[in-house]
């Protein structure tokens, strides 16, 4: 075992610690949050310690699990996502004392997705991730939230079914369930093709790629804000990680089967997602469509199918996640008791809370891809990957999408800098935990834009798919 799964164990311990804290402590909510946060930090430290381990990559459970630098990078990303979600919802009675435990369970699923190397672990990861999120989405205690949970559940079960059937066909076509053996096995072609198609459909469902995106806006809008934060960042990381692992490990040889299709989906998603984002008035829906469009950017990295693509995708996940964390924590502060933020709520924000507006501006500009924010470097990296793969179509789709997206992201900022109507001139209150998230996320976003070299270095190490160009 040699501790390769240490981060995962820490998270499991955190689940129990958090639940026990609820039972034994008088300050039960806050204790649960602290226990969960401690587990996340411990898992993060363990991940960092594993990073330089000479034993990597480690295969466990008959190659079902493969711990390598890629999985550790994914661990880092999802730990960041869950820490952000915990802090955004910190000790808020609305979400109850079970919120931290559920977040940790979903976190476990995301981490498992990062190290899956066979169909069993892949499926378990997807379900470990989804089940707590169904509950979290429905846990808001108001009608929209319950309905978001229901919609998420039904489409999640549906897409899991598609995924499972695809995996079953692939198993039949190849005789193995291990991703890394898939490439070497003799495939029964039509069966494998059908299985691959179904599996990819199931996975892009989770990622929210157009035309499999219809659940995203409603679920994002209905869910409580911290849950939306977590979904926007964490789920995207998990789904993108497993899609990349599945395709790069299993189907590196049969590139022609999936690369063009994913390329078209990526372009469609980037362009249409940003177009749909243009019309949104509710900030959660705006970020939902933005999430769809950003899933398209991630898909560019995957369908470029080269080392640069994988690295760019990892880098972009971090950039996107930080921007989303910053934006959502600002929205959470603006929303206060309510659970949504519309364009009108932002009017005059610059006068009420100039710093908050500045942070929001950084997040939005990063999503739009303006230089000196991480978003620009991320898009630049993706462009490089796409052009290096001789896919100018992807590159053009990416910039067209980014152009359209910019208009969508700038609108809330224009409203924020507009004069308010004078009704709510009180400055927005800053909860400490939310402030920590927003400050760290904004600093990270700017830091990644100004000096990305260290993260680029890390990413280049972790996405070492040596058999690719």
């Amino acid at each position, binding site marked *: 075992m040699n501790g390769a799964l240490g981060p995962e164990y820490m998270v499991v311990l955190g689940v129990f610690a958090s639940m026990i804290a609820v039972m034994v402590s008088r300050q039960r909510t*806050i204790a649960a949050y602290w226990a969960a946060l401690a587990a996340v930090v411990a898992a993060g430290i363990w991940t960092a310690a594993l990073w330089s381990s000479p034993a990597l990559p480690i295969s466990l459970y008959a190659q079902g699990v493969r711990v390598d630098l890629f999985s550790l990078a994914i661990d880092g990303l999802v730990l960041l996502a869950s820490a952000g979600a915990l802090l955004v919802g910190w000790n808020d009675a609305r979400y109850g004392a079970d919120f931290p435990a559920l977040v940790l*369970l979903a976190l476990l699923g995301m981490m498992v997705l990062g190290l899956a190397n066979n169909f*069993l672990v892949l499926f*378990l990861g997807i379900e470990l991730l989804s089940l707590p999120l169904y509950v979290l989405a429905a846990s808001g205690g108001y009608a929209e939230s319950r309905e978001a949970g229901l919609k998420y559940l039904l489409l999640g079960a549906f897409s899991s079914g598609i995924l499972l059937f695809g995996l079953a066909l692939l198993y039949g076509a190849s005789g193995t369930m291990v991703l890394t053996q898939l490439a070497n096995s003799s495939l029964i072609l039509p069966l494998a093709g059908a299985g691959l198609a179904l599996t990819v459909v199931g996975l892009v469902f989770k990622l929210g790629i157009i035309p499999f995106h219809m659940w995203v806006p409603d679920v994002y809008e209905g869910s409580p804000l911290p849950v939306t934060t977590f979904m926007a960042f964490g789920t995207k990381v998990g789904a993108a990680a497993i899609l990349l692992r599945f395709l790069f490990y299993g189907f590196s040889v049969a590139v022609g089967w999936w690369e063009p299709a994913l390329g078209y989906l990526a372009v469609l998603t980037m362009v249409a997602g940003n177009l749909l984002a243009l019309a949104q008035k509710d900030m959660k829906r705006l970020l939902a469509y933005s999430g769809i469009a950003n899933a398209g950017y991630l898909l560019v990295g995957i369908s470029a199918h080269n080392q640069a693509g994988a690295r760019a995708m990892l880098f972009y996940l971090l950039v996107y996640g930080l921007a989303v964390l910053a934006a959502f924590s600002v929205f959470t502060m603006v929303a206060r008791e309510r659970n949504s933020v519309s364009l009108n709520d932002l009017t005059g924000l610059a006068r009420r809370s100039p710093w908050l507006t500045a942070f929001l501006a950084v997040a939005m500009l990063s999503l739009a891809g303006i230089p000196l924010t991480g978003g620009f470097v991320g898009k630049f990296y993706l462009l490089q990957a796409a052009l290096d793969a001789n896919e100018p179509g992807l590159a053009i789709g990416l910039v067209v999408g980014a152009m359209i997206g910019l208009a969508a992201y700038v609108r809330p900022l224009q409203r924020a800098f507009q004069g308010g109507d004078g009704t709510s001139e009180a400055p927005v209150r800053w909860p400490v935990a939310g402030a920590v998230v927003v400050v760290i996320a904004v600093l990270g976003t700017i830091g990644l834009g100004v000096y990305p070299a260290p993260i680029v270095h890390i990413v280049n190490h972790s996405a070492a798919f040596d058999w690719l160009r």
Partner: protein
Amino acid sequence: MIAFVILAILALGGGVGVVVARQPVHSALFLILNILALAIFYILLSAEFLAAAQVIVYAGAIMVLFLFVVTLLTAGKDDAEPQEGLAGQRLTAGILAVLAGGGLAVLGVLYPSQSIPFGLPPNFGNLHGMGLNLWNQDFVYLAAVALMLLTAAIGVLVLNRPQRRQHRAGVKGEDS
């Protein structure tokens, strides 16, 4: 082959019944039929343990839960739901799914996998064999399933906790 045909008819009949039944209760009963047919398939496919699990877990636990919820939710109501019109979009999606499924079925029939016809290893599919797997190298999967069941338990608690007063929403600190 005869066994296959009979069971296939039962399974398909149950499946179609789930989809076309007007009332959820009937759907649930059809699903039980389908599940039981699959359980017999499992026995024929040398998966005795799974057959038992299918009957106990699926037909026993899951479907009873379903039936319970269905009766709970529709009790005392006029349980015939209003006529469902097939909207164009749904119809198209349905036709596409049928075509795709038909294609898949043909594929499955025409391209058999590399089959080893005889010489099943000892303990294949029985309780002993599954135990050897699930309590040795695959134990971690079992643990993951356990965590999912834990999630379900928490989920049920969270979703059905008593509703707080509206004015308390957003109050920081102690959960009621």
